[in-house]
């Protein structure tokens, strides 16, 4: 088991964004979180990655509690994520966006950088090679010198995932990776996620509204509504679960 969330609660003013959320993730699993808008999915990600502290409850990564730690510390412990509203470093190039994620793993100090020692050049070369590898996997190599803000939407989403992977995480959190994509792009994304999980031995937790992707690649689903988990199970069960249907249709929320 790689991640365990227990009784996670978080309020914002009067709103209970998270209200006692429990679940576990096994190593190597590919799990999806679905639910109507406003059900707390992104807030869950934000609490797990340290952007918000929970009011109550715990988050345990590989046996160690991480709730309340700052985001950079959680990132160093092996959780990486993408964002619902793409947060790239817009004025940096594609290469640099990925390179920044390497920063905690870089093996030279400020003195090396200032004096331009051999260690500096070697490490920069090594970093660059790794980055190139990532870019190739994500089909971004030919756009390596482009500024992130000039990329197409689909490219930007892929770049964000590439950057997340540069942190060498054990757990990858994807927040609506397929948002705004057309069907063929979604298909390629599904492929990419599976390949990447395989190659880097990741556990993947994703939030998504596009049912094709969810049903297509998720091994297990967690359904949320009003900050709580209302159903869990394999996709085929969830599809038939009346509570889930009510949650979506009863509120006029989107469904696929």
């Amino acid at each position, binding site marked *: 088991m790689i991640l365990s969330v227990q009784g996670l609660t978080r309020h914002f003013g009067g709103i209970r964004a998270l209200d006692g959320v429990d679940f576990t993730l096994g190593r190597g699993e590919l799990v999806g979180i679905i639910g109507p808008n406003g059900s707390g999915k992104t807030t869950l990600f*934000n609490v797990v990655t340290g952007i918000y502290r929970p009011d109550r409850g715990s988050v345990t990564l590989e046996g160690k509690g991480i709730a309340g730690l700052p985001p950079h510390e959680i990132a160093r412990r092996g959780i990486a994520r993408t*964002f619902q*509203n793409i947060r790239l470093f817009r004025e940096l190039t594609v290469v640099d966006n990925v390179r920044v994620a390497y920063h905690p793993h870089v093996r030279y100090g400020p003195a090396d950088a200032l004096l331009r020692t051999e260690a500096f050049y070697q490490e920069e070369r090594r970093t660059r090679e790794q980055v190139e590898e990532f870019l190739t996997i994500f089909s971004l190599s030919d756009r390596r010198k482009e500024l992130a803000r000039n990329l197409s939407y689909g490219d930007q989403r892929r770049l964000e995932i590439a950057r997340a992977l540069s942190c060498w995480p054990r757990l990858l959190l994807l927040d609506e990776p397929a948002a705004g994509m057309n069907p063929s792009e979604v298909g390629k994304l599904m492929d990419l996620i599976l390949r990447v999980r395989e190659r880097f031995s990741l556990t993947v937790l994703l939030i998504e509204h596009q049912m094709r992707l969810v049903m297509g690649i998720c091994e297990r689903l967690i359904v949320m509504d009003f900050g709580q988990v209302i159903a869990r199970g394999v996709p085929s069960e969830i599809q038939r679960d009346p509570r889930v249907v009510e949650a979506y249709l009863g509120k006029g929320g989107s469904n696929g």
Partner: protein
Amino acid sequence: MYALIALGYTMVYGIVRLINFAHGDVFMVGAFLALYAIERLGLPLPAVFVCAAAGCAALAVAIERLAYRPLRSAPKIAALITAIGVSLFLEYFTALHQVFGPNFYAFPRPFDVVSREFGGVTVTNIQGIIFLATLATLGGLQYVVYHTKVGRAMRAVSHDPVTAGLMGVNVNAVISFTFGLGAALAGVGGVLYGIAYPQINTFMGVMPGLKAFTAAVLGGIGSIPGAVLGALIMGQSETMTSAYLSSTYRDGIAFLILIAVLLVKPTGILGTARVEKV
């Protein structure tokens, strides 16, 4: 008195997120206009106020249209630097010999100073006038912002300019009006300053402007009652510092208080935090 200037800062910031550094100099212009009105035109006091307020409002609207409006879509820093540029320009242009000149001018007092004692505290009629004038303007402002159509429009634009525009609000006009209103207040402040401290010169707006701005931030920028609260705190702390420590520390104490407050309440005492969606 800082309150009047502070209000102008807070209103402009609330509506266009710009720190209008030139505001302090508008205050200065108000004082000079008043001087002109009294000496050359021989107007009675109420008319002087109107004259100064109107003149300052016109100036501010002109500045907004020429210097700030074209930069609405530029990075914020450009507008800020332009604001400082306008400020410097106003200061030095009026300091030229051909215009006002860099000297101090004696500001004629249209009436005599009378002191009265209220329970152990000496109050001059000047302070009384300042207090009353501030109160009156505050009341007027409160009315405008909360009870008129324009005021509603102002509040709408400060929340969300795009939607306000879509709802039929003439955003540009509202912004101009806000600038003008703030400047009118500053103009009134300038006249009051001239009455209280009978020496004016073209650089007099710098420190009061800075302090009023600090007062606005202290109280929470964008909040009208906050500006007044901030100004009160600043005024009091200054007087006390001059009395108990030495007056050379006076300028510094205001900022010290500001920083202390910002540490505890990063958006000022009455300010509202702008929440970012992650």
